[in-house]
């Protein structure tokens, strides 16, 4: 009898999980993938999962990627669900990106500048041709010896520009930064919360929003003032010690977009900034984030708010891929009660129109 089909959810779930585990492992003839391999060889995926998962832990991110069969949003979800259970011991001092140990640093607005342009491990100028030599299981690459590390100080381009008074100044926060993982989003949302949402936000969403500003939906005439990637120290200052101690390092990508601003009656024409900062090597995300950050400052700078990327409520409510994927995918849960009421409603309306 068909009615039986809706019963037996319990066994069905167990069977589905068993099948999933088998699928994840794949053909047992192939070697099992180790977490260390993912961590070492799928670094960009690990970085993205750490960034959107808001948890800086390469090993756990790699584990999540393995468990999720490479589904990165699912991996972010796993990491987030773990992160939420962790106790908080302390808050770090703000990291100092000006003192970053640079692996990559480029500026698109000056041909040369103190510290120079450093390409780093970029794929920008590779030709996207499949490298069939990678098909070899035991690939032995002849690594060129690493270039001697730079030691020259690398002041941030924003600091250089600011000396001339052409770039808006940094504004110090007036209060503790907000935290979307503890407090619900409240509107109007200040820039601290907006930046947090963007840093955690889905790379694809932020990219699309940033792109839309370049195509005329809230354009800001951006220039990539500086992109830098490298390691920074993280420090905490325990109250009982009274001085800061170094607790570890983070690899970060930072992007400062420099954008035009015509000025107002009280503010002279100058350049304004959009800011992007993400865990790991996430240049695409950092750049897109900086574009969207600047777009969301439209109201603050007295510009018309007309485009989606300028609409703070729209961007913030839709940037989180864990919220989005959950709600989109919940449509596959049973809705037969609602559908039944719609069916009866349609029947009723048809009968009453006919009579």
């Amino acid at each position, binding site marked *: 009898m068909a009615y039986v089909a809706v019963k037996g959810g319990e066994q069905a779930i167990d069977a589905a999980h068993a099948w999933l585990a088998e699928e994840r492992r794949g053909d047992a003839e192939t070697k099992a993938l180790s977490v260390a391999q993912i961590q070492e060889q799928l670094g960009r995926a690990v970085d993205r999962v750490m960034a959107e998962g808001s948890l800086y832990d390469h090993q756990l991110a790699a584990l999540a990627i393995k468990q999720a069969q490479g589904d990165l949003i699912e991996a972010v979800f796993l990491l987030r669900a773990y992160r939420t259970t962790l106790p908080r011991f302390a808050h770090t001092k703000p990291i100092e990106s000006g003192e970053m140990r640079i692996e990559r640093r480029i500026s698109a607005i000056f041909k040369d500048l103190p510290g120079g342009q450093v390409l780093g491990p970029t794929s920008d100028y590779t030709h996207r041709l499949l490298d069939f030599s990678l098909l070899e299981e035991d690939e032995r690459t002849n690594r060129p010896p690493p270039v001697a590390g730079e030691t020259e100080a690398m002041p941030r381009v924003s600091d250089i520009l600011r000396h001339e008074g052409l770039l808006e100044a940094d504004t110090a926060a007036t209060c503790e930064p907000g935290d979307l993982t503890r407090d*619900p989003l409240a509107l109007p949302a200040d820039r601290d919360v907006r930046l947090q949402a963007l840093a955690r936000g889905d790379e694809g969403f932020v990219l699309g929003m940033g792109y839309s500003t370049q195509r005329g939906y809230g354009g800001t005439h951006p220039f990539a003032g500086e992109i830098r990637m490298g390691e920074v120290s993280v420090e905490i200052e325990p109250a009982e010690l009274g001085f800061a101690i170094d607790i570890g390092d983070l690899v970060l990508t930072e992007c400062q977009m420099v954008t035009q601003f015509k000025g107002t009656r009280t503010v002279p024409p100058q350049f304004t900034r959009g800011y992007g900062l993400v865990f790991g090597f996430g240049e695409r995300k950092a750049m897109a984030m900086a574009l969207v950050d600047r777009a969301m400052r439209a109201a603050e700078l007295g510009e018309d708010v007309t485009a989606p990327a300028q609409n703070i409520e729209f961007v913030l409510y839709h940037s989180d891929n864990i919220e989005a994927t959950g709600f989109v995918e919940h449509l596959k*849960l*049973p809705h037969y009660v609602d559908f039944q009421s719609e069916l009866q409603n349609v029947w009723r309306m048809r009968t009453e129109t006919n009579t």
Partner: protein
Amino acid sequence: MKGYNFAYLDEQTKRMIRRALLKAVAIPGHQVPFGSREMPLPYGWGTGGIQVTASILGPHDVLKVIDQGADDTTNAVSIRRFFARTAGVRTTTATAEATVIQTRHRIPEKTLREDQIIVYQVPQPEPLWRLEPSRVETTRMHGLADYGLMHVKLYEDIARLGQISISYDYPVMVNHRYLMSPSPIPAFDNPKMDMMPALQLFGAGREKRIYAIPPWTRVKSLDFDDHPFRAINAPHPCGLCGSTDAYLDEVVTDDRGGRLFVCSDTDHCAERRAAGFVGADGAREAAE
């Protein structure tokens, strides 16, 4: 469960949620923002309801979880297992035995008692969202009790279709003050909310809102004097237990238009059948 607190959430988080719940009970129908946590189940699958349940559950509680009225739908099974695993509480499918009932899309047919709590999973707590997508705007509208937009929508339905076209998630007015989404329950269930002896709690995890209806509170489905609220149900008795006053699911039995109408509340149906009530299809099945 090893490594996790009782009922998964840490005590600080539970305290934060309980504070939101107390505020919600004090202002019936008002949406209280809360610091919704990321749960190990996806948003949209009951994270709000789960957080509310986790915050009110004690070791002696007996939990029932239903989805579409049924205890054995996959997501209900999954949530029931989650609490059996993380809280070790006793679970049940019998409505009368439960002290806490978490539900998605239905209210049980059996009248709930004062010593029971029903927790609704809410996908979209904002009743005005189809009419005004901005939460900044809707918050202002709730503040001013400015619900003209919804009345106009209902009026337009009547003017164009001769009747109100909302069949589920039918908006209600709570305690004569706040317009509220009853969650996507069929409009059939709306009257059960009015003056319910049990406490009704609503959790929306993704949207980070909690709201509540205290026991014995007026809950009125929006309507007009000349177009009173009407609940809809399939015009059939239950095929298995013969019930004529329970909400029905339609089950497609073949590809030639065959249909079986059965109680959506599986516990209600099973209890009636155990008491000897037999519907037309139930009798046929027994004869086969």
